[in-house]
């Protein structure tokens, strides 16, 4: 830290030179920013401008660079100085593009730019160039848990790209659920008839691949470590365990069909002639091995009429069964009806549905089934009454509004029950599972992680594993561990194979990043990592509990252990730490705090309020930048600081800002809750919980609660955000200036 030399560069391009007094900005950098070397340039991001900066770094001993030009999101390739700490003052998107080009506005616009220069100079001094995580691992082996279609596809795809794979399957054979199918829904033109499952081909590919090490009848006894250096113990049937060094993990543990015995009103478990979709596949395979005639289980008579009950135990509003649609079952029932029609067109096949949902090219498949004479009836089945060798299906015909409709003398009833994820232990539930829980919780852990936060990957709802469902679907909240296939969300074979391929590539990316000490998404490539001053730690455990990615364990003395490779660099630990001992090299309580303090606060008589905006860099800050690109104007009294996540906001920043005389603070973070959009999944939620207690702080300062405002901002809020800013600025005028000005 001793030999730092800061240089500030002010760009005059993109209209900055015309709209701003750049000479004054250079002076501000020198005087207020206390920067020994400050220059302006006509066109900083061109080869000449960049060469000037490089020359100063090489010959003038510049270690810290402050660039006053466009947003930090622009020109990242030009202003790429990995050896140096770099701060950017956003004069283009953040100042001239959001201000009107008028003589009246010139003064406040210039003030805004000057503050951003002060903030940039203050920030860069509080930073060091990140050196990368030293605690890396070099294992390039991929562990795939589950030998079904998803798992096999992941293994094959990863192996094809040259990465060794360890494939662990719980049962004695590969193939999983798909191996129990007679045929699958077609995925090729003309989408008219059931097709071969392709499982045999996948199995032979896996078996023939010397790059894939296969464990059958095996489970994961223990998973320890971090991306690049996982140590996994595989327990085999014989009781022996094998230790494998693993770089990244793909969990493809699949699903279990919802238990039809929970549906006695639909005849589940009451008659051999009421089966679920798996039961019908078994009958079809038995038929194919014999004379091709599907027979009634109760007496072996050929089936002459069959009724398919869609949404059995699914899309349930009573809270007893699955509340969701599994998405695959309409196509599956259509396929199964074709088993009958293709063998014998005189068999009566009726599919009773409430909404026929046929994703992919299922519409063609559906039409083909209609051509083959499968009857589709829109209705809701109330009851299946088995009676000897046949059953009566009572239903409410929704087109004719006939509540007493019935299919009588039905030989076979097939219940389309949904998919329940095999996602292991729900680590967020208390250890004893309450009986009121509607979704079956499998008490057996799949990964047996040694992580402080629990043995399995966290779930979102209904037992499916949590991921960022919009942007990073294969990610889990455990870095380097990916889920693919129906454990993530209900899906069919085609979707599972796509998922598997995606997860394999993400896993490879993760282990490569881990070796280089770089972060995975959304800060991919980030070399900074949390550093803790352990001598200041009070062992309060907030960081170990709150980390959305379970990156932080505890040692035997209950001090936090940062597994840097598991870290996504969101800074939630930094925001949580009450004694502020956690920081990143280029992002810390100090680097943001210094910016807050660097802003020039005019006195209360100037009628120039100051509003601090802490904006999430993932959504809110890009939205603000885009507002600039669209020339959506907003108040010149705001000073915006990008933050990594709302979760990284330490309350000290807000206290500092209010003490310094800011009139208000706006926090802009992503949507939280079940429908979250936070890129760090839990970050914005945790940040908001923390901020909900800010009222106490305001009370001790004797300030109005309006002084702090929490906003949910999405990346699309390009017009809304400027409106919200202007509205808040107007509201603050009514509240009056902060009493802390001038102290």
């Amino acid at each position, binding site marked *: 830290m001793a030999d730092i030399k800061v240089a500030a560069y002010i760009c005059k391009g993109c209209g900055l030179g015309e709209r701003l007094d750049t000479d004054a900005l250079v002076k501000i950098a020198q005087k207020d920013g206390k920067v020994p070397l400050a220059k302006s340039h006509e066109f900083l991001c061109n080869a000449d401008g960049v060469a000037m900066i490089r020359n100063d770094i090489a010959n003038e001993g510049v270690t810290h660079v402050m660039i006053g030009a466009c947003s930090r999101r622009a020109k990242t390739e030009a202003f790429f100085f990995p050896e140096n700490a770099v701060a950017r003052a956003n004069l283009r998107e953040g100042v001239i593009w959001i201000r009107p080009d008028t003589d009246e506005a010139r003064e406040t616009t210039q003030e805004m730019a000057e503050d951003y220069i002060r903030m940039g100079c203050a920030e860069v001094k509080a930073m060091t160039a990140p050196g990368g995580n030293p605690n890396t691992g070099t294992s390039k082996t991929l562990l795939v848990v589950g030998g079904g279609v998803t798992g096999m596809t992941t293994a094959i795809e990863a192996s094809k790209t040259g990465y060794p794979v360890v494939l662990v399957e719980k049962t004695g054979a590969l193939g999983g659920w798909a191996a129990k199918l007679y045929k699958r829904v077609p995925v090729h033109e003309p989408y008219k008839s059931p097709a071969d499952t392709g499982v045999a081909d996948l199995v032979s590919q896996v078996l023939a691949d010397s790059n894939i090490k296969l464990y059958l009848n095996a489970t994961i006894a223990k998973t320890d470590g971090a991306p690049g250096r996982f140590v996994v113990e595989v327990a085999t049937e014989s009781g022996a365990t094998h230790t494998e060094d693993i770089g990244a993990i793909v969990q493809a543990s699949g699903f279990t069909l919802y238990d039809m015995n929970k549906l006695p009103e639909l005849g589940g478990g009451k008659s051999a002639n009421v089966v679920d979709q798996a039961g019908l596949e078994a009958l079809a395979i038995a038929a194919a091995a014999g004379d091709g005639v599907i027979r009634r289980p109760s007496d072996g008579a050929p089936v002459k009429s069959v009724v398919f009950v869609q949404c059995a135990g699914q899309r349930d509003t009573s809270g007893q069964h699955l509340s969701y649609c599994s998405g695959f079952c309409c196509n599956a029932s259509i396929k199964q009806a074709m088993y009958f029609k293709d063998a014998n067109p005189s068999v009566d096949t009726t599919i009773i549905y409430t909404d026929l949902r046929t994703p992919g090219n299922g519409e063609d498949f559906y*039409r083909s089934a209609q*051509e083959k004479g499968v*009857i*589709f*009836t829109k209705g809701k089945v109330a009851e299946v009454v088995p009676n000897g060798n046949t059953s009566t299906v009572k239903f409410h*015909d929704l*087109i*004719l509004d*006939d509540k007493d*409709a019935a299919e009588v003398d039905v030989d076979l009833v097939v219940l389309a029950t949904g998919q329940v994820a095999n996602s292991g232990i729900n680590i967020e539930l208390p250890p004893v599972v309450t009986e009121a829980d509607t979704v079956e919780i499998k008490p057996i852990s799949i990964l047996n992680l040694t992580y402080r936060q629990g043995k399995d990957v966290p779930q979102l709802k209904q037992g499916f594993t949590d991921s960022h469902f919009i942007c990073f679907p294969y990610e889990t909240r455990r870095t380097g561990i990916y889920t693919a296939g129906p454990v993530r969300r209900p899906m069919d074979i085609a979707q599972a194979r796509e998922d598997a391929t995606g997860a394999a590539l993400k896993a490879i990316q993760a282990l490569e990043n881990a070796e280089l000490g770089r972060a995975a998404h959304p800060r991919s490539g980030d070399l900074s990592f949390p550093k803790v001053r352990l001598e200041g730690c009070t062992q309060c455990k907030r960081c170990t509990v709150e980390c959305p990615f379970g990156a932080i364990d505890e040692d035997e003395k209950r001090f936090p252990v940062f597994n840097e490779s598991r870290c996504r660099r969101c800074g939630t630990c930094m925001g949580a730490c009450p004694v502020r001992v956690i920081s990143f090299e280029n992002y810390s309580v100090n680097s943001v705090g210094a910016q807050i303090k660097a802003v020039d606060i005019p006195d209360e008589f100037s009628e120039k309020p100051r509003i601090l905006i802490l904006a999430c860099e993932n959504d809110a800050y890009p939205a603000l930048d885009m507002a600039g690109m669209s020339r959506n104007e907003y108040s010149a009294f705001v000073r915006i600081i990008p933050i990594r996540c709302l979760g990284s906001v330490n309350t000290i920043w807000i206290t500092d800002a209010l003490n310094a005389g800011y009139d208000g603070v706006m926090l802009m973070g992503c949507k939280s809750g079940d429908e979250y959009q936070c890129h760090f999944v839990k970050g914005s939620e945790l940040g908001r919980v923390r901020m909900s207690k800010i009222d106490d702080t305001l009370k001790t300062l004797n300030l109005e609660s309006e002084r702090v405002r929490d906003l949910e901002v999405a990346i699309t809020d390009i017009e809304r955000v400027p409106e919200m800013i202007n509205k808040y600025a107007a509201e603050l005028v009514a509240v009056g200036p902060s009493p802390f000005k001038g102290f």
Partner: protein
Amino acid sequence: MSANTAVAEKYRNNFLKEIEEQVEMGDWVKMCMQCGVCSGSCPTNFQSAWEHPPQELFMMIRAGKREEVLTSSSMWNCTSCYNCIVRCPRKLPITHIMHGIAEYAHRLGMAPKMQPTRFFSGLFWKNCTHTGRVNELKLSMGLYFKDGFVQGIKNGMAMQSVALGLVKAKRLNVMELFGGHKCKDQKGVHAMLKKAYEIERGRKTAKIAG
């Protein structure tokens, strides 16, 4: 055994199959996906003329509601505007299917006897095949007296001014009531129609016989 009971006996509950085989374009009924665009597009539906819109009729056929479908007046209300055909996402020739079902119900003697469309169709056919030309005076009078003598007089009185106007403009000749003019070869037309009937009857009998 009438034609109706004979068919009912053969198909038992599988009314859809009966429609597929007996009704012109009936094999399209199974392709309906119940979206309801036909019902929403039907201009007659604005006046609640339809007891059962096309989509519902198709569902009733699949549900085996034979009596209700064939005695329904719904398909007789079709005005052949072709909106449904144009809009059907599954490309069902709905207008033609409606006419097919109506014709089949008529053939079985199950169509509602005094349904105006059906009555007028019969009247028109008889009228024009009799002489080979349409006798407009007799046709409209036949329609006026559909619901009895008293109602016929009332209808006539109501249309009095129109009729007189037509007579004055020489658009209506009262003498047409007595015989009226014919086409050149009335006998030839009759012979042609007789042959056509014969061919059609043969074809339909064969179809019912399977």
